[in-house]
């Protein structure tokens, strides 16, 4: 038993690094004097660095199913973890200057690590209990991050809305988990696969629906999407960037695992996910159309992006492209979103559409980066977003859901409209006054994220090599 426990602990080393690092950082934050609090960001980077190294090390030989069948430390999880690590590192880089004068900044980095840990756990969960722990860890830290500027009305409003919706969604999820446990007699996903055959189909549908609401909340999918625009607009910009992305990574992977074990003969989950995808992408796009607040627009566009990402889940089990397309989507969206928010942070949170007028010549680099991230969201080649959409559409066409690909196309064309409402005036209107800049670190973060968006599109082969034969374990 002990040796098995020891082996399990070694298998999930990246998780332990996250957890241990966060705990050490709490102690530092508690005891370090105020002038040394700035270094807590460095501490977070060190933790993330070790977690990233450990994850990369394991990629060569993934441990696979571990922790007594409750955790899937497979390659897909490792890649998901890597994406989360990169996103968190970029978030820390954006936060340093933003929170420089905040006396509580140390706590912020601790919360950030724990929230990332929640997403990492979610990506590997193959047990309902594990799943609940991950969901709650990720949610509770998320609420705090969203409202971290407690004196800002916008931030507290975003936080409270996020919390109320989250409480509802997580409650529904807990109820759904209880139902699934009752119906299948076990908590691991493997038990669901066998235990649900012969169960009352109506009850299984209700249970799956309730769990889906919880996952939809993390993803920002209909019907629990409403927090995304609020958080994007009101929360501290670096935290918003993180919250829009990290949860998506964990939730999309776990949804795919869950979908794989549900017997299609009992629950027609595929059409259900397809409808959620269709409604999510369309609603997100239509709501983004007339937004005059850039961050709110990014929040709605994030909702529509979730809709595209769900195509990968629709294709699972029917197309070999399902897993690679999901990872490609997550990587491309995460980097694009970080780049766009990095531009906003660099402009000190500038968000009114009007104030972007004529910035094309005043801030050529920042606006160029914004254009790249927008065009990647639209799916213009050779950017990362294009390759992602190509794979996603290929996957659903192969799975017999060509109508979803057609809807994706229509939505992509619509999305150009609201991005152009910002790009157009930025370049075509007379030159505007330069805006105050955040600082060098934020500026370089823009550069790194933007180059990465271009690079994963142009040099896609190494990623495809790594992802095309990935197996997703589901117990």
């Amino acid at each position, binding site marked *: 038993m002990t040796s098995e426990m020891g082996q399990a602990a070694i298998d999930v080393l990246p998780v332990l690094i996250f957890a241990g690092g966060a705990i050490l950082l709490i102690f530092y934050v508690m005891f370090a004097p105020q002038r040394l609090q700035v270094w807590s960001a460095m501490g977070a980077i060190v933790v993330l660095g070790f977690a990233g190294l450990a994850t990369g090390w394991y990629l060569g030989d993934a441990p696979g199913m571990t922790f007594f069948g409750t955790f899937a430390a497979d390659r897909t999880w490792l890649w998901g973890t890597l994406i989360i690590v990169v996103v968190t590192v970029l978030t820390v880089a954006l936060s340093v200057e933003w929170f420089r004068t905040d006396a509580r900044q140390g706590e912020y980095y601790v919360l950030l690590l724990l929230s990332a840990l929640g997403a990492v756990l979610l990506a590997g969960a193959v047990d309902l209990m594990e799943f609940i722990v991950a969901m709650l860890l990720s949610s509770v830290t998320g609420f705090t991050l969203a409202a971290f500027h407690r004196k800002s009305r916008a931030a507290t409003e975003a936080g409270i809305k996020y919390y109320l919706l989250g409480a509802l969604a997580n409650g529904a999820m807990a109820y759904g988990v209880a139902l699934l446990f009752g119906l299948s007699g076990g908590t691991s996903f493997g038990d669901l696969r066998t235990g649900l055959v012969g169960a009352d189909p109506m009850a299984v549908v209700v249970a799956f629906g309730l769990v889906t609401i919880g996952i939809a909340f993390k993803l920002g999918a209909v019907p629990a999407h409403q927090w995304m625009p609020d958080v994007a607009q009101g929360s501290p910009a670096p935290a918003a960037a993180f919250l829009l992305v990290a949860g998506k990574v964990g939730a999309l992977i776990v949804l795919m695992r869950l979908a794989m074990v549900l017997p299609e003969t009992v629950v027609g989950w595929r059409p259900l996910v397809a409808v959620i995808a269709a409604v999510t992408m369309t609603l997100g796009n239509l709501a983004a159309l007339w937004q005059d607040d850039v961050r709110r627009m990014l929040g709605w566009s994030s909702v529509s992006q979730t809709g595209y990402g769900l195509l990968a889940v629709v294709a699972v089990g029917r197309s070999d492209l399902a897993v690679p397309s999901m990872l490609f989507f997550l990587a491309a969206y995460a980097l694009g979103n970080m780049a766009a928010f990095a531009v906003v942070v660099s402009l000190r949170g500038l968000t009114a559409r009007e104030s972007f007028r004529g910035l094309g010549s005043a801030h050529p680099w920042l606006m160029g980066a914004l254009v790249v991230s927008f065009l990647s969201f*639209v799916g213009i080649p050779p950017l990362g977003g294009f390759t992602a959409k*190509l794979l996603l559409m290929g996957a659903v*066409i192969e799975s017999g859901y060509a109508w979803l690909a057609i809807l994706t*196309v229509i939505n992509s064309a619509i999305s150009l409209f609201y991005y152009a409402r910002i790009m157009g005036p930025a370049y075509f209107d007379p030159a505007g006054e330069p805006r105050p800049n955040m600082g060098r670190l934020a500026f370089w973060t823009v550069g790194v994220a933007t180059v990465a968006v271009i690079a994963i599109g142009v040099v*896609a082969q190494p990623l*495809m090599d790594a992802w095309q034969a990935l197996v997703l374990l589901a117990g």
Partner: protein
Amino acid sequence: MLTLAIFVPLLVAAITLAIPKKYEHYARPLAIGTSFVPLAIVIAAWAQFDIGTAGFQLVETTAWIPSLGVSYTVGVDGLSLALVALTALLFTVSIIFPIDDHGKPRAYFATFLFLEAISLGVFLSLDLILFFVFWDLSLVGMYFLIGIWGHGDAQRSALKFFLYTLLGSLALLLGILGIYLYTDPRTFNMIDIIANLPVPAGGLGPVLIFFGLGLGFAVKTPLVPFHTWLPPAHVDAPAPASTILAGVLLKMGTYGFIRISLQMMPETFQRFALPLGILAVISILYGALVAMAQTNLKRLIAYTSVNHMGYVILGIAAAGALGVGSEASRSLAMTGAVVEMVAHGLITGALFLVSGSILARGETYELDQYGGLAGRAPRLAGITMLAAFASLGLPGLAGFVAEFQIFAGTLGVFPWLAGIGLLGIVITAALFLRMIQQVFLGDLPVRWDGWRDLSRAELYALVPLAALVVIIGVAPAWLIRVVDSLSQVVTAGIVP
């Protein structure tokens, strides 16, 4: 070698952006010099091209994303060689043509060189994904070109252009994906797909693919009723951008119809050749009639583009129609269509540049503001009249050669469509004659007493176009032989 034609302009575009502000006046000479590189490469390629060999030549290939069957492959055949030559030439003259760069010469010439690389890439690509990458980037380049350096309601026109053509190009992407999913082993390589024809003839899938591709190409060409983005884009674009839009970007649509719709799905194309021909005739008549009603010079030329692209599509439809025994007619129609693409690029390119010269002097496109300019500006009048006569199909000029072959070929396949389509030529003749009469003949309004004739820089841009219009009109064999090497392959169903 062909790769250099794409990447040299791309590289110099980046360098141009990096020129320090102090030296920004060097952007123009640098761009002009660079634009001769693709031109020289095309001439060399033309010299090396062997018209006796079916299929693609001068192919260069390297792996890109092998896991997905995506490669970087470029090469030419009779079709792409003609269009690449046209593209290189039109970009050189458009860059030479003097223009108000709104105080941003670096950005302007960098965008132009970028668009040149992209446009050459579209015609040279022999991989569907590579093709699509260039195709979509051409929209981005043109969007900024119209938006930043346009006039009038440029922002709105640029957006309309981008939205319409993006929707079309995404439909095209679905079609490309559809073809890809039929290939086995999976590949986007166009040479392989044309050789193996993986898409079956019957069933719903191929029809959907054909419609996706067709929508993408029809928006870009544009065929009526997908043309509504074109007039505003042309009217508000700066003159050289209009030239590129009409001369190069529209050709991408017709090129796609031949290269992808026809060559990759010949059997499905046969089933829809007649409806496509009917749409073409509607475009011919509608474009001509609406052009007739215009009082704005640039809108008039824009609608004649709709009309002329109708001829091209009619030729393609006839070439792809079913018909054992009509190979000769269909081959003739195909050659005509491709020659018409080249001719239209030269003629309309010249007309748009001329309209830019007129705007720079008179500050309006309204035809009734002008008159009697022939006496004041004989060189302007001469070149405009030459281009207008060529456009209406006067024998001895390039337009006639093309349109004669299209109609002669179509007559053997769709006789009554050819008959109706001929009416278009009558109408264009009327409208061009009226345009010439309004602008150049009659009394000279007093305020144009100081009208300047074409400057030397304008002549450098216009004379080569005019000369080629005459050369192709009088001695077209050198062009037709190259194009014929394609037409034979396509219409006889020879697998290259």
